[in-house]
């Protein structure tokens, strides 16, 4: 678990605070700062304001789900949490995003360093056209891993075990990652992400390209992973959010004065509460399918 990096972002080895079970169950206790906290975040693509004023507090070792209609800015919000949006030339994020208390959009923060700490899993499985072994080790090597062969073996095995893939691939780690099934590829991508030892993993509709059985395996995996990681997942599937997440954020789109469709956070509540007794009418309309 060592990162020999003199990075501006400070990494804490242990989550500073663990949210107490009872508060996680819904009592809106005074919120302890979570692993990632956004404050008044506005995100633009050029002149178009895609997301307006998002303030969210993602707790340690929980699964937080982002749901809402298509185009409401879920992916946009997710990508701004590890500065993947920087790769889109027109994208701009205003406001603050705190990771372990440090603003990742602050001066002198290197986006590359941020992404090393906050892993990401994408909608479509995207393993490198390399062996399973090399896929896992790639990120670690980029992050300065210089261990021996046996260290590398151990790292690969550990990541694959954590991603519940080891049993299936232990005899063929030198085969191409592309030879795996879609669900296995997605677990390989999860293994690859956690091999760089992040403490947050962002997932953007990780199951949308998978069949129901592979989807369930990923969901089980997420529940295991939350022991050690904080997970933020975008999903268009409300059942999925209900099944796996501890808290759910519901986004909606508002037509603004310029006629643009801007996404807004409607409600961020413990999942059970959001699906049974949401605070807002909009949320209720959406989850009961009376959305229009």
């Amino acid at each position: 678990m060592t990162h020999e990096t003199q990075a501006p972002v400070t990494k804490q080895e242990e989550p500073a605070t663990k949210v107490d079970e009872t508060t996680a169950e819904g009592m809106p206790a005074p919120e302890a700062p979570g692993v990632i906290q956004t404050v008044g975040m506005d995100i633009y693509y050029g002149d178009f304001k895609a997301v307006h004023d998002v303030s969210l507090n993602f707790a340690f070792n929980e699964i937080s789900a982002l749901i809402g209609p298509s185009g409401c800015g879920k992916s946009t919000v997710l990508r701004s949490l590890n500065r993947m949006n920087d790769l889109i030339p027109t994208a701009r994020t205003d406001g603050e995003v705190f990771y372990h208390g440090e603003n990742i959009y602050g001066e002198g923060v290197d986006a590359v360093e941020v992404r090393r700490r906050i892993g990401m899993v994408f909608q479509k499985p995207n393993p490198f056209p390399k062996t399973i072994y090399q896929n896992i080790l790639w990120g670690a090597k980029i992050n300065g891993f210089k261990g021996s062969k046996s260290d590398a073996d151990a790292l690969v095995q550990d990541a694959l075990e954590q991603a519940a893939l080891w049993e299936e691939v232990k005899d063929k780690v030198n085969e191409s990652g592309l030879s795996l099934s879609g669900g296995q590829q997605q677990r390989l991508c999860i293994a690859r992400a956690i091999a760089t030892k992040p403490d947050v993993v962002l997932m953007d509709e990780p199951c949308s390209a998978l069949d129901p059985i592979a989807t369930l395996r990923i969901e089980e995996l997420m529940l295991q992973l939350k022991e050690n990681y904080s997970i933020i997942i975008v999903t268009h599937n409300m059942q999925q959010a209900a099944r796996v997440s501890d808290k759910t954020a519901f986004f909606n789109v508002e037509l603004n004065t310029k006629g643009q469709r801007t996404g807004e956070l409607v409600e961020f509540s413990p999942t059970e509460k959001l699906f049974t007794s949401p605070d807002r009418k909009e949320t209720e309309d959406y989850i009961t399918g009376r959305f229009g």
Partner: protein
Amino acid sequence: MTETSTRTPRRSLGGQRRVSEKLILVSLFVCGAISIATTIGIIYELGKESLLFFQDPQVSFWEYITGTIWQPQAGSFGIWPLILGTMLITVIALTVAIPIGLASAIYLSEYASPRVRGFFKPALEVLVGIPTVVFGFFAVTFMTPILRDIFGADVVGFFNVLSAGIVVGILIIPLVSSLSEDALSAVPDSLRQAAYGLGASKLEVSLRVVVPAALSGIAAGIVIAMSRAVGETMVVTLASGAAPRNFVLGQDPWSYILSPFEFGQAMTGYIVITASGDLSYNTIDYNSIFAIGLTLFLMTLGLNSLSRRIVDRYRQEYE
């Protein structure tokens, strides 16, 4: 009359469309057949004249494929000096073209803004449109004097393979660059995203994900550029000299045999010079150019099928 015709509308089952489709098919077939027939004709002609060459009592096939002296006047017909010229020039050309071509491909595909790309790509393509004879003069009047200034006029001959090789290299840069760029752009963006997501810098993404993923496409492009260099004629004719670099193994030092500063006629150069001289049909000199042409044809055929093999492997990778 009109009543009957409206009551019994007869639709032809034969149909005009099928006839015209057949016509198109036939004409496409004819076009394909013509190009195949041309290729066969070329091979036949090369083979026939080569056969005349090898049947000449002065020529032995064994000497042709092993000899290191090419001196038709003296009855020596060893192909190696000409192959040597071609190979030296090709190696020098690739040494110039691969790094520059690949670097510009990486720049264009991974770094350049659309505006810069919009300027650079046509600029590179202009290079393709320049007649090669212009490059030949460029080699003789510009590159050679510079090389002689740098290394000394006593070291660098007026005709030398280095000048020819560098200029052939410049000539094939656009080929290396555009074929490599195609291969790089074909790498799915999702792989770049994956790499960035793992905390890779732009350079790491380019060199450690995109280039490796495109490697077989790049290799295929390099082989094609290589066969273009092997077949290049005007530059080598003008810049590398009109005499083959004859040598005797074990007697001439390798520093002479492989020297980039000495003259060294290439296969194509020999064919041009010989064919444009006044020689009559069916002399041994005349027939020799067909044997060399056939050898050249087999070499480029080999290179092209190699590149096809590489591309086939490349296709599998993304399935």
